[in-house]
């Protein structure tokens, strides 16, 4: 136990002295700070800009053959498109097109009749809602006209058109929309941290082996202490990094809270229910450990640093497949599909799959208990197995041994 403590301390010191590790952490904290201060910064600039806003409005042209229609369209469009300076034109379509491509005019609506139009724009943005807005505006005009034409008074027709429906949604289970973002963040953080720190553990083992420091280490310390010391140090370093990044996010968010307004997404991220937070921690730790052990064990069988990537590829693939399954299930909205249910019990995928299901759906407590039980048992199992592989692996030089040979050697040792 004393030896384990020494190893843990030594490995932790390595992280603290690792310039890349410290640098990346600070860099990410700065990025988070900038993001969190962003609304405050933009608010600062906006207050200066209020005086000259009207002049900067981009021009939207409206062309209609019928002048009464042109007037009505201009009036309603001006009300609907407040970001544009809406102007009527009777120029030729080719002239309008030229104006758009030259940048004088942002976009143009050419009316082909009461219920038909062509929308001209230079680059159609993914988020360009103008045709949709125009469609619904024109629909309303048409409906209004039809109602008035049918004998309704203008007030009655307007009343019908502007009828409000009171809707209330009450979710008895989980609100997927609300939980989506922090589930997404947690899965993504887990993904990043496991790949990053898994590689770091692998590098650390392989470096010791290739520099032959291993010859001395293996005769000075118990392999199980070495393996657990290394992996737990990586785990703690990872946690410190995450706490630093998310902690700074939380602090900076609270500093700038008033500027963020009622942003539901951001709010939901910082309002994780405590029980979910505990699950997050549990799955995060176990998921991290199980993969770090695997990375450590595999890299101990590698003789040259450049062979690490090839050697750890199967583990990385296994992990990415699990990640993909979870991500696709999340975005499809059906997190309880059969694949997710299976993945919830496989120790290599359950940290992501089970957590996602707990966060975005309702899972019976015993299923959670079984999943965590399997995960805890396999984490310990894999930890001990990886220490055994490590002991055999670190003394194997030359070409990477086949999996069968390693298993045989571990079995006999």
């Amino acid at each position, binding site marked *: 136990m*004393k030896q384990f403590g*020494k190893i843990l301390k030594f490995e932790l010191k390595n992280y603290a002295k690792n310039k890349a590790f410290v640098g990346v952490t600070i860099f990410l904290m700065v990025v988070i700070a900038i993001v969190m201060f962003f609304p405050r910064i933009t608010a600062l600039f906006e207050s200066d800009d209020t005086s000259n806003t009207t002049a900067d409005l981009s021009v939207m042209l409206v062309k209609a053959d019928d002048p009464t229609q042109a007037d009505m369209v201009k009036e309603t469009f001006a009300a609907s498109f407040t970001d544009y300076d809406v102007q009527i034109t009777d120029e030729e379509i080719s002239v309008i097109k030229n104006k758009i491509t030259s940048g004088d005019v942002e976009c143009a609506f050419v009316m082909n009749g009461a219920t038909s139009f062509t929308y001209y724009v230079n680059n159609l943005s993914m988020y360009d809602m103008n045709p949709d807005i125009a469609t619904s505006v024109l629909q309303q005009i048409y409906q209004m006209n039809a109602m008035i034409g049918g004998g309704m008074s203008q007030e009655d027709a307007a009343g019908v058109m502007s009828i409000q429906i009171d809707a209330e949604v009450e979710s008895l289970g989980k609100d997927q929309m609300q939980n989506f973002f922090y589930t997404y963040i947690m899965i993504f953080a887990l993904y990043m941290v496991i790949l990053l720190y898994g590689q770091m553990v692998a590098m650390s083992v392989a470096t010791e082996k290739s*520099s*032959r420091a291993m*010859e001395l280490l293996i*005769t000075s310390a118990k392999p199980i202490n070495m393996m657990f010391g290394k992996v737990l140090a990586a785990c703690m370093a990872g946690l410190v990094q995450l706490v630093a990044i998310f902690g700074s996010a939380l602090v900076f968010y609270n500093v700038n809270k008033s500027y963020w307004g009622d942003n539901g997404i951001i709010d939901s991220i910082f309002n994780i229910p405590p029980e979910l937070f505990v699950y997050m921690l549990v799955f995060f730790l176990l998921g991290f450990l199980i993969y770090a052990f695997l990375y450590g064990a595999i890299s101990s069988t590698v003789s040259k640093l450049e062979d690490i990537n090839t050697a750890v590829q199967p583990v990385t693939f296994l992990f990415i497949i699990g990640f993909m399954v979870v991500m696709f299930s999340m975005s499809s909205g059906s997190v309880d599909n059969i694949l997710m249910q299976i993945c919830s019990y496989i120790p290599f995928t359950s940290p992501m799959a089970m957590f996602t299901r707990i966060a975005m759906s309702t899972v019976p407590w015993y299923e959670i208990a079984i999943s965590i039980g399997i995960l805890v048992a396999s984490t310990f199992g894999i930890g001990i197995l990886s220490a055994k592989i490590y002991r*055999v692996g670190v003394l194997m030089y030359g070409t990477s041994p086949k999996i069968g040979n390693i298993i*045989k050697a571990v079995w006999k*040792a």
Partner: protein
Amino acid sequence: MILELKNIEKSFGEKKVLTGVSFKAEGGKAFGLLGRNGAGKTTSIRILMDVFPANSGEVLIDGQPINYNKIGIGYLPEERGLYPKKIIIDQLTYFAELKGMSHKAAVQSIDYWLGRLGMTEYRNKRLDTLSKGNQQKIQLITALAHDPDIVILDEPFSGLDPVNAMLLKDVVKEQIAKGKIVLFSSHQMSYIEEFCDSIAILNNGVVALHGDLHDIKRDYPRDRLVVRTETPDAIKADFGSSCTVMENGDLMIRLGSPSEKKTTMTRLVENYDIDEVKVFEPSLNDIFVEYAGDVAQED
């Protein structure tokens, strides 16, 4: 204190590496473990250090199974290597602490050894800024700093210049004088011959020869004389085919039997101008080639 390996058997997969390996090493004396590459020396050392267990056999200290918590072992591996990018004092302290020392005691002992080996100026430098010989001296400290009961030195002299070799010799003698078991493994026979009282020669995983070096040499048939003279030609003509010229120019005369020693010596001294005549004793090199050399044909 007596360290004893008894009937050690070890296989890696189908390959049998050690077969019935037994030898004894005594405290206050140096023991030489010899053998060609792949003979099983490193495997024996690793079993002795509990890196992996033997398939069967025992490692005993004074007749009792060794207790690794009580018996300290210092090891200078043949494959040298520490952390190249780390500060020397930091990594030396780490290794000493892994062996159970407190931080304070470790630093104290390491500072002593850095001074003893003339390395104090490198204390706070990175290992990879040192020359190979100096790195080796740093590595030697990892084997000695925790004051172990058993010191295992695998090829300790390779890569050292004569001055450093002398320094290491003094250190080794000091360790022997302290009553420690010093176990040497080396291909440089002259050093083994200089230090070791007893040896074991491993050949293909079997102990081919084991015992006190003096006894081994004495047990060789004493049927050859070495003669140093200014007039070799006359002696050669006299003794015919039983006289051969050795590499250094001395003559070797093979006797019909050891009992002819006295008469032959008298005959030489009375008839010729003799500078020196003595019974031929094989060097360790000769013994090694004889006991470990036959593998060459098998390879």
